């Protein structure tokens, strides 16, 4: 009986430690909000807007430089707050489609894409 209880306890501890053992993919706010904004654009923009050409990826580089989503959190939330009419009028579809990636250099410098949503 004691052994059985110990086994159940060990199993419970292992289950609760599973996330630490497995690691995870980052559920970052900038990635999530970027995906939300691009999904909103996909629903509003003409068929020529290709969401797969926008980068919402965060990746740590080997040399210390990191790649950030093309849309920052502020830009993403700004887009999410706009109606489809406002998005079409402001030309956001083409501006977002033309964005490059945002790479932060190891020395702290960065290539920051211009704000696209005001």
């Amino acid at each position, binding site marked *: 009986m004691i052994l059985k209880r110990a086994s159940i306890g060990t199993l*419970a501890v292992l289950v609760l430690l599973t996330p630490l053992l497995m690691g995870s993919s980052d559920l*970052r706010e900038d990635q999530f909000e970027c995906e*939300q904004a691009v*999904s909103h654009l996909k*629903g509003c923009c003409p068929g020529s807007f290709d969401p797969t050409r926008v980068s919402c990826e965060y990746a740590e580089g080997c040399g210390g430089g990191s790649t950030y989503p093309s849309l920052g959190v502020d830009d993403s939330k700004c887009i999410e707050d706009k109606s489809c009419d406002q998005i079409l009028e402001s030309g956001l579809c083409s501006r977002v489609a033309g964005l490059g990636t945002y790479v932060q250099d190891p020395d702290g410098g960065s290539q920051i894409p211009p704000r696209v949503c005001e």
Partner: protein
Amino acid sequence: MKALTSFFAVLAIVGFSRVASADDVSSVPDNSPRFLPRFTARLDGGLAYRALYGSHFWGGEITATGGVELRPGAILLTTDLLYGKTEFGLTTWNWHLTPMFEFRFNRLRFGLGPSLGYLQIARVTTPDHPLYDLSFGGVGQLTVDIVQYDVLRNDGRPTPPHAFYGGIRFNVDSYLEQNDSHATTYGPTFMVGYRY
């Protein structure tokens, strides 16, 4: 967040064991039939809401539970799966595994437990590579038996009734922090189900 979860887990375990101990050491002669622990299984489903980074997602959630009904309550193992959409249409899957301690007060039942979770959110920019993360968290639930079916075993001993029930469950999840975002999801599920 993790400290809060641990606090609730310890509170539930201590409280449950104290109630159980009080039952065990009762030395007053009791002529009523002895309570008989029994296996229990439940299935419920409902509508779920979760907040994430000031956004949210809605969906349907289904929960399966197994465990043992004891005199003061029940010890349960619960697993639930939520399928939903964010406000901009990203598909979400949210899964939990929760050991739960449940206390019974007539038709009301109150349960608490720590949970292990997994959240996956589809991406439109890279459809083959969703966002996902594992989480630690806590679950609290309050249910009320809407229709009860009394159970008397062949030997006349009473056991907790089977029932149709309704209630609310509240999840809080803290995702592993490998970044500076500190992702947390929380929100209620309104459910109805049947308890065997």
